[in-house]
């Protein structure tokens, strides 16, 4: 059997070129750059209104993608990529069609088109780059914004400090339909990341990739903290890495022990107002999720340790 793809043997050719206009330390740029390296040049990209549209593709007449790039309205990513694929099918061409939307364009605005495409099991890849607010327009809350976070529409006042609701569990919404593949990815778990993207590339049917992409500007963190944030999100349970193949959920990385959520919060300015009670509320929400996700009665990862993001490969955990 061939060795699994990892960051050392993955393709080197870039399809999101240098010169794109993202902020320094942009998580979206890291995710999209590496997804495009793996998908290769036989790909068509669709991006709705989002940061990626502005910095990567849609500053007409310029584009940072060297593959065909399209954009249309905010809410119809699922519908447009279905249409692009249908067009290629009619022409008899086998092209990978990928739609890359932000969390606003997926959790809130694009949900119905996404659900439609998933229900029809269209042969496309849908990527949600999740930076937990509408960052392109200056940090407004979205369905993805976590509890307690500051945004311009959930400001920190005297009575109410930050967002009151919890983050929507989008993966449950998407995987409630019988789609080919769904996975959560983190840019800090690099081999896990490339393996999931490669798996998605080689499958047929609707494939959904949910990437956590820290945002230095909106999270009020240091640009060089992007990696630490992505890593700490997994270690604290704010983010978990798993995949769903034909309805079967499998954990791809299990943290050794749960770190307190404050280690994740303290790296960011958007949480610095949080009171003890709010941190406790968030922590107990995470604990509930953690127990459900990493259920102690779940079957252990026997013989699958090599698949773990930090296991097996020589270049990790040096």
């Amino acid at each position, binding site marked *: 059997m061939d060795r699994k793809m990892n*960051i*050392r043997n993955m393709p*080197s050719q*870039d399809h*999101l*070129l*240098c*010169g*794109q*206009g*993202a*902020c*320094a*330390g*942009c*998580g979206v*740029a*890291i995710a999209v*750059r*590496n997804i495009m390296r793996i998908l290769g040049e036989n790909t068509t990209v669709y991006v709705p209104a989002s*940061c990626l549209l*502005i*910095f*990567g593709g849609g*500053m*007409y*007449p*310029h*584009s*940072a*993608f*060297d*593959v*065909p*790039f399209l954009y249309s309205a905010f809410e119809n990513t699922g519908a447009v990529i279905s249409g692009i694929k249908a067009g290629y099918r009619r022409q008899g061409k086998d092209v990978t069609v990928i739609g890359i939307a932000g969390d606003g364009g997926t959790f809130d605005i694009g949900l119905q088109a996404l659900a439609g495409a998933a229900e029809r099991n269209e042969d496309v890849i849908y990527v949600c780059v999740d930076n937990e607010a509408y960052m392109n327009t200056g940090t407004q809350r979205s369905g993805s914004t976590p509890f307690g976070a500051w945004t311009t529409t959930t400001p920190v006042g005297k009575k109410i400090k930050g967002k009151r609701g919890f983050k929507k569990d989008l993966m449950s919404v998407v995987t409630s339909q019988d789609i080919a593949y769904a996975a959560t990815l983190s*840019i800090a778990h*690099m081999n896990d990341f490339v393996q999931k993207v490669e798996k998605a590339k080689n499958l047929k049917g609707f494939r959904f990739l949910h990437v956590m992409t820290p945002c*230095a*500007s909106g999270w009020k963190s*240091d*640009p*060089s*903290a*992007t*990696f*630490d944030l992505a890593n700490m999100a997994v270690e604290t349970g704010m983010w978990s890495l798993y995949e769903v193949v034909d309805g079967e959920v499998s954990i791809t990385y299990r943290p050794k022990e749960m770190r307190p959520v404050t280690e994740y919060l303290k790296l960011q300015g958007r949480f610095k107002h949080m009171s003890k009670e709010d941190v406790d509320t968030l922590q107990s929400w995470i604990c509930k999720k953690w127990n459900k996700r990493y259920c102690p009665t779940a079957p252990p990862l026997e013989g699958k340790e090599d698949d773990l993001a930090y296991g097996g490969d020589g*270049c*990790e955990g*040096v």
Partner: protein
Amino acid sequence: MNMYEIRFHGRGGQGAVMAAQTIAEAAILEGKQAQAFPFFGAERRGAPVMAFARIDDKRICDRTQVSEPDMLVVMDESLLEIEPVAAGLKKGGCAVVNSALAPSEIDLGVVARCVSVDATSIALEMLKAPIVNTSILGAMARADDFVKLESIQQAIMNRFGEKLGEKAGRLNSSAAKAAFDRSREGTCKGERKIQRKNAWLPTWQETPPGVALPRTTKAGMAVGPGSMSQNLTGSWGVSNPIYDDSKCIKCQRCWFICPEGCIRRSDDGALRFDIRYCKGCGLCAKVCPKDAIAMKRKGASA
């Protein structure tokens, strides 16, 4: 006084908008009328941005962008190379430039009264971050007497104190004072040619069907897929990576994590850094397990 117009040229994240608002507030504290607003565009942290302010004794009805400023504020010296910053500067107008050079060594493109201040050093020293807006405000008080330093300091206390706490307000206000004391006055050079930026947008007759554009060249610039690579984004950051390949174990983590793709690799895993595009985020140094990459501030001696 007549209407006094100010144009700020900065980079996203340096606080150009905040500086414009603060100078307007300082004028209001002195009983004048003022307005401040940013250039509306798709700006990202590090990208060239503009902000405007107007100050007058009478009510201001003009809401347009400032094209002929009395004062020009250049918050990042590298903008002189890529933006037509000095365009439209009024006769007798002055410029404030963030630079370690003396005014006579700065080539603005027009001969004008000029104040230079090393605001980046002051900001790094006092605020521990390269956010230069408050230092620049101090230098602006030095360049012209349309507002007093005291009002600027008070406006900084009001604005920053409210947003970031009183301590941050005091720190920023003392950064303004330090910049006022350390700025140098003189006259700048006008040798540089001010060129309007190249731009191509199709008229309706030229618009291709479905606005689809192939990779091609229009008006001397690349357009279509991949054409953004003509933006050399390397001027955005304040530091660059220094790579020591003797320590490198070729784990490729930096290659994966670089958001700009400025790290190129060959088939044997050897890495090459293309700092023409590096925005200085420091992620490559962060993920390196062997400390083979260090971030160094640009222009600093070894």
